[in-house]
């Protein structure tokens, strides 16, 4: 770009600066730690908003705000960053969730210094994944993310927290091992780690079948998204993680999977992607229906939302492997939308849990009288999750359905799309059932003393609601940006 201010580096490393300050301060007070964390994430968010506003929507298929510094010359690896229409929405999402997760953690009292250090590190690493243009750098950030999440779950979690943390760690590492092999193969075949150069590269006959390479690369992403049947780490991790970690996990972390599939697998090997698209679409619709079915059986509020993520991520996979411009854009929109909506749902579950000390739906009833503000915000999040028009959830799902249904590349795509549509009835089933269980009917006396949301909680949750409504009522702000990123991929896959 004309004037390089290293804005992207700033977005990534502002939280790191924050964590460094917290780490170096001798015995900082709780308040100090929280305010430093908040300022660091706020600064990062502000810079990312600046990038969002300055992003040139007329430049189709170009990385913007790029930075490139030679890093490991011997293997031709660079510290290379950039954003386009696919990554920018996810960057905004992450900086927003990073900031809100600090507010959500405002009442943390157990070892706050370390807690906020891990939380800031988590945000930085996810941002790094979304902005890296070099596979080595990408992989580095991808792996770094595991460490803070592992500690956040195992120390500040609840229930079977060690089990959940180890399961998360080992499951993800297994995927990473395949991914690393895939990245190395890619390098040996092409001689480059440059993600932009790899997009649409022509790979001739090599020592390894392209199908195998495709699966080496995609398996880690499939675990992260998660794709059925690799999803069982997710409910355990979510149920036992602290609220802020759940918010980031559902909101931003899962999107690394979807982003990786689009950026690495589909862009690099569109033909292989097309070849295996029917399989992936079947997994997607299985995930949607099966995930929703299992969700309906849950009685733990957090587990319920966690399983609903499995179902909703099915729409992302369906959108990607419909291999059509509209559906792909829908998949990116769905990632953004799910990030905001489910982030809010987890934040609300956290609030309900904080106040009632239970997440068991059999023990909750009639809370709307005792906590009206929480009830309203929770309901809005739920309605957005079931795809009600006027919320961003509808926009994203509709674009996915429309793109998938109109796709002509994949045989039988219409059927998959219609099965996906069926999922919205199941979604309304579990969301409305949950809302009824928690908030409606006769209030229970034992919760008469509980309070409603306080100021900090109101600020953070209202911010979510504002975003849900804004992009639901005027989605062009986001879709115009997504379009610029999707078009070059659409050309590659011949749509």
């Amino acid at each position, binding site marked *: 770009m004309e004037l390089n201010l290293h804005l992207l580096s700033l977005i990534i490393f502002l939280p790191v600066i924050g964590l460094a300050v917290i780490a170096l301060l001798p015995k900082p007070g709780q308040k100090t730690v929280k305010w430093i964390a908040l300022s660091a994430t706020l600064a990062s968010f502000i810079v990312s908003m600046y990038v969002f506003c300055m992003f040139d929507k007329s430049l189709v298929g170009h990385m913007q705000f790029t930075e490139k510094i030679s890093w490991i010359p011997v293997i031709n690896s660079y510290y290379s960053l950039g954003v386009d229409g696919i990554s920018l929405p996810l960057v905004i999402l992450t900086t927003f969730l990073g900031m809100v997760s600090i507010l959500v953690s405002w009442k943390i009292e157990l070892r706050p210094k370390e807690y906020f250090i891990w939380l800031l590190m988590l945000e930085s690493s996810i941002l790094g994944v979304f902005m890296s243009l070099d596979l080595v750098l990408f992989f580095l950030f991808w792996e770094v993310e595991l460490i803070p999440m592992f500690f956040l779950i195992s120390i500040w979690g609840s229930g079977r927290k060690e089990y959940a943390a180890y399961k998360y760690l080992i499951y993800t590492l297994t995927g990473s091992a395949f991914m690393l092999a895939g990245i190395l193969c890619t390098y040996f075949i092409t001689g480059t780690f440059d993600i932009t150069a790899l997009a649409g590269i022509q790979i001739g006959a090599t020592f390894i079948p392209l199908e195998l390479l495709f699966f080496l690369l995609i398996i880690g992403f499939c675990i992260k998204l998660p794709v059925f049947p690799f999803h069982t780490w997710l409910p355990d991790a979510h149920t036992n993680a602290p609220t802020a970690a759940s918010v980031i996990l559902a909101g931003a972390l899962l999107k690394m999977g979807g982003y990786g599939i689009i950026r690495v697998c589909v862009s690099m090997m569109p033909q292989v992607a097309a070849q295996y698209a029917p399989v992936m679409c079947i997994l997607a619709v299985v995930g949607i229906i099966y995930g929703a*079915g299992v969700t*309906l059986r849950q009685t733990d509020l957090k587990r319920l939302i966690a399983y609903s993520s499995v179902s909703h991520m099915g729409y992302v996979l369906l959108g990607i492997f419909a291999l059509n*411009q*509209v559906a792909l854009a829908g998949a990116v929109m769905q990632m953004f939308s799910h990030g905001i909506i489910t982030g809010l749902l987890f934040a609300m579950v956290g609030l309900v849990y904080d106040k009632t000390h239970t997440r068991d739906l059999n023990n909750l009833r009639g809370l709307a009288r005792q906590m009206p503000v929480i009830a309203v915000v929770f309901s809005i999040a739920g309605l957005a999750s079931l795809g009600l*028009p006027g919320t961003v959830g509808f926009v994203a799902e509709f674009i996915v359905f429309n793109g998938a249904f109109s796709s002509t590349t994949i045989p039988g795509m219409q059927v998959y799309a219609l099965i996906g549509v069926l999922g919205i009835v199941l979604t309304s089933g579990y969301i409305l059932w949950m809302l009824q269980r928690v908030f409606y009917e006769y209030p229970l006396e034992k919760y008469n003393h509980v309070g409603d949301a306080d100021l900090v909680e109101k600020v953070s949750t209202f911010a979510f609601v504002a975003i849900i409504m804004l992009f639901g009522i005027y*989605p062009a702000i986001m879709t115009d940006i997504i379009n610029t990123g999707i078009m070059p991929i659409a050309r590659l896959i011949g749509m």
Partner: protein
Amino acid sequence: MPMQVPWLIFLLPFLSFLMIGLVLRPFLPRYPRLAGYVTIGAVGISCALSFWVLGAVISSPGHMLPVDDIRWAVVGNLEMHIGVMVDSLTAVMVVVVTFISLMVQIYSQGYMKGDPGYMRYYAFMSLFTACMLGLVLANNILFMFVFWEGVGLGSYLLIGFWFHKPSAANAAKKAFIVTRFGDLGFLAAILILFATTGTFDTGEIYKLVAAGTLTGTTLTWVAIGIFAGACGKSAQFPLHVWLPDAMEGPTPVSALIHAATMVAAGVFLVARFYPIFSHSPEAMLVVAVIGAFTAIFAASIGFVMNDIKRVLAYSTISQLGYMMLGLGVGGVAIGIFHLFNHAFFKALLFLGAGSVNHSSGTFDMRLMGGLRKSMPWTYITFVIGSLSLAGIWPLAGFWSKDEILMNAFSNNPTLFVLALITVFMTAFYMFRAVFMTFHGEYKGGAPSEHGDHDEHPQGPHESPAVMVVPLVILAVMAVCSGWINVTGFFNGLFEGDVEGAVHKIGFLEGFFGTLTHPLPLASLLIALAGIFLAFAIYIKKWISAEKITNAVRPLYTLLSHKYYMDDLYENVIVKTFLYNGLFKLFAMFDTSVVDGTVNGTASAASSAGSALKKLQNGQTQVYAFTIALGVVAIAVVVYLFG
């Protein structure tokens, strides 16, 4: 007329919702009535503007105003626009919606007085009215769907208005999910439509259908999909089950949403995409058959209900079936004409039932009786509404029902017979309700928990003026609204030529002349027979109701259980087959197979590790022995195979 007017009709109630929800909130605890005034003001202005629009449409050539369109979002070839379209159908609908809404909002001033959720009530009512207007004004099928879901939300929120009652919370959820089931069809139709034509625009779709681009099975599937959505909202068989339960909401809500406007949205939707239907004989047949069947089916359940609101609910389902039949055998004008008349008399009947509840504290007709003395205004207006619904000349219902019967007669004799039987049933169950409620002796009302209100003044009494005045206005409409088509004016408006239509026949000639034709005369006599039967049973008691009930006990049981449809859906399909069947299987599969494999792999790896660990015991002798063993083994292999 400036193009901003149709937009304003929609935006005013929406602004009222935002005002109450965001701006006025801090003042409302002290001045709750502010919420009501804001809503009434906004809807009132909308109503005035609607009449302006109707006037402009009547005077414009072809009864169509230019379309206004704004780009909303574009993704690839998916271009989404938001815009308004004003033709005769829209103009009639906005008038109906705003007028009924205004009456209901005024009435609610009395009915909802003192309710702790007063401001929430008006906020939701504004939101609903805005969405309903958005639905009828939208110029493309995508935004019709957006507002279609919006009215569904309004209905959900208002059915569940008294959410502390489990029955209300259940009914709200049921309404949303059942209608959403129909919406699947609607959404599928939108997807098919866009995949084939590349547009959402209503006007474009009309052109493509007329040009023959959109034809054949695709067209039929689109029509069936749209009709599935319409079935959900308009409570047509087999998706009718939510509407009777929706009576858990406050009665003015039932009048506005579940009688006059939202439930009629399905009829409106079919009318809006009528060109698609009319090019598919199969789809037309489906609409007509489902409509006629629903009409008689729901009327039969109405026979045995003892709750006055449930009688009206089944009556609404039945009448919506009538409208569908009208669309299926006649045309847009026929179906919408009945929608137009029905909106007035059914809103009137519901508000009347609310007034009765206000006084007696119950909806159970067995606990009422004799109210005509203490509630003369409610009584007179309710009787007018019932006569209109029964289709007695010269009241509104007569004219539209007559046209539907006439068209059914010439198109499909079987459906005509069904419709004619329904006429008799309608007259009977309505006057059963009238006689049980207002005649005989007062049976003391009910314990207070039964009704909408927590507290009641002792003894039956007439409702306050703020409730009675809307009743009287609606009663006037229930008498006169049908006269608009005596000369063929209404049909002409929809066929695009009022001038050509109105001069064929004079008003008085049409008004009295209709009785010289055999068909209207026959249907009038049949309706009178229905009233007479009710009179014989419930007033004169020439025939004992119990004796009839006992004589047809199995049939009575079947009817009072609503043909066991609720049991089939809730217990058999949802609870047994899905929740405790398929989904339980999924959940078990997830824990034991999917997660079991993961944990199994982990523990296998871990036990393999512990097994291997024993080899690394640090004893050099063992290592040396193993190496020696290996060397020997290799030597043997080389010797044997080398």
